[in-house]
């Protein structure tokens, strides 16, 4: 995680727009970012019922160009990138040479290059690592002049449809034709947009890459729609927690291996068989269920939230794990959390005890997502 105290905070392209809407700004990932507009609870529930617009321009947008880009990236991620069709997106993990998780990221095959979205707090380290690992015929460009907006919620699609966004070429699909984990290039008037049907809330929605100088025009046009309100980081966190989605730097970091992080789905079959990604030997030794610890969801028995840093304890009060994210679920109206527990205690329904500020709090291991995903998936034939 980056230390915000020692560096000068950067401003997002939409900084003044956020402030004009009454956002409360906080330091996050080296930026001043809007944590809330009207309030976390209201913004969260609005997004679950309507559509919320999130400014995620702090995240790193990176392009990899060169014929060998997919193969080269596969050396440090366990996803099957070379098999990714044009217009398809894959969630994968940036792995250190020992298999530790350096970041989680989205990789899109745009048809002409690879487009990566990485976490804001880790983007500079990620880029340095990628540059050190990639061969000279693969060129990395950091799209620092692009903003990234996420439109999320059950009404995201009907809202986006009102903007009259056209395909980059006649005959190509419009944004609302995309299914979950598909992406494409579009035009909004004369403004080019890269739109992905993806997100971090568990809802249907889109992530829109837009040249920074046009970001405010796009954000204002979206928020002028009756379905859409601006949403801050606070609700982004509570939404992703309900969706069971881990937050890098909290729910996993360089000391955690993918199986421990409960991210087996990111270890694609073909890549497991090839076993040639960074740290593969160590990572695959744990696959599928041989890790000592595992990230799980927790329901808290009672109303008091448990927070990151609280200890999971055994019957003698010895620490055996840790809570890595915790908060109050606005949708379920009760506290939920993610924690690392010994694998023997990771079964759904297992009762465990968490100690927080000297108080023992009883919890139950829960299936994730806590709130069902509402993705617009391609129908299975």
């Amino acid at each position, binding site marked *: 995680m980056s230390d915000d105290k020692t560096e000068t905070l950067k401003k997002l392209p939409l900084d003044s727009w956020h402030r004009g809407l009454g956002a409360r700004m906080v330091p996050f990932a080296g930026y001043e970012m809007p944590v809330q507009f009207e309030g976390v*609870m209201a913004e969260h529930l609005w997004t679950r019922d309507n559509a919320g617009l999130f400014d995620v321009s702090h995240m790193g947008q990176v392009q990899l160009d060169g014929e060998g880009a997919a193969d080269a990236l596969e050396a440090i991620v366990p996803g099957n990138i070379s098999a990714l069709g044009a217009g398809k997106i894959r969630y994968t993990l940036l792995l250190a040479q020992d298999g530790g998780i350096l970041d989680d990221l989205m990789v899109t095959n745009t048809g002409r290059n690879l487009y990566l979205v990485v976490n804001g707090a880790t983007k500079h380290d990620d880029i340095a690592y990628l540059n050190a690992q990639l061969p000279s015929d693969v060129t990395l460009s950091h799209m620092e002049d692009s903003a990234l907006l996420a439109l999320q919620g059950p009404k995201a699609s009907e809202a986006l449809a009102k903007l009259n966004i056209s395909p980059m070429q006649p005959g190509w699909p419009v944004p609302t034709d995309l299914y979950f984990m598909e992406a494409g290039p579009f035009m909004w008037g004369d403004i080019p947009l890269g739109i992905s049907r993806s997100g971090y809330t568990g809802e249907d929605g889109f992530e829109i890459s837009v040249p920074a100088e046009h970001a405010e025009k796009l954000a204002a046009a979206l928020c002028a729609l009756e379905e859409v309100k601006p949403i801050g980081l606070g609700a982004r966190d509570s939404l992703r927690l309900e969706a069971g989605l881990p937050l890098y730097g909290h729910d996993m970091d360089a000391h955690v291996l993918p199986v421990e992080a409960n991210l087996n789905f990111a270890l694609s079959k073909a890549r497991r068989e090839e076993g040639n990604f960074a740290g593969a030997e160590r990572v695959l030794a744990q696959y599928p269920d041989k890790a000592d610890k595992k990230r799980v969801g927790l329901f808290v028995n009672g109303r008091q939230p448990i927070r990151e840093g609280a200890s999971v304890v055994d019957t003698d009060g010895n620490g055996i794990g840790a809570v890595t994210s915790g908060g109050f679920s606005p949708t379920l109206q009760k506290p939920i959390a993610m924690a690392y527990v010994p694998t023997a205690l990771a079964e759904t329904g297992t009762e465990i005890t968490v100690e927080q500020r000297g108080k023992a709090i009883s919890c139950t291991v829960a299936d994730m997502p806590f709130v069902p995903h509402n993705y617009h998936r391609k129908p299975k034939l």
Partner: protein
Amino acid sequence: MSRYYTDEHEWVDVEGETATVGITDYAQEQLGDIVFVETPETGAELAQGDDAAVVESVKAASDVYAAVSGTVVEVNDALEDEPALVNSSAEEDGWFFRVTLSDKSELDDLMDEKAYKAFVDGL
């Protein structure tokens, strides 16, 4: 009855030897949606500055310190079922607990309403 304020954004209403303690409207506004309040046990002896309560918003937990020393004689049970009372009525129905004051001279160091308002305006 007199009302006092602390620089930790608590209010203290004093009536005779009894003080009622809560957090200010400014504090609840800063904390946002309050989802849980952990009040002290009745009978607890609090020294000024001790951790007295915890107030939890969707996002974070915040400590509430004992504004004054004393013995807890009553806690606001309504907060158990309706913690949002702290948002809707921070300085009345959303009170946290009552103590029997053990040292009334501690009140001399607290702010009155005018001083607290000036303090908040300066933040």
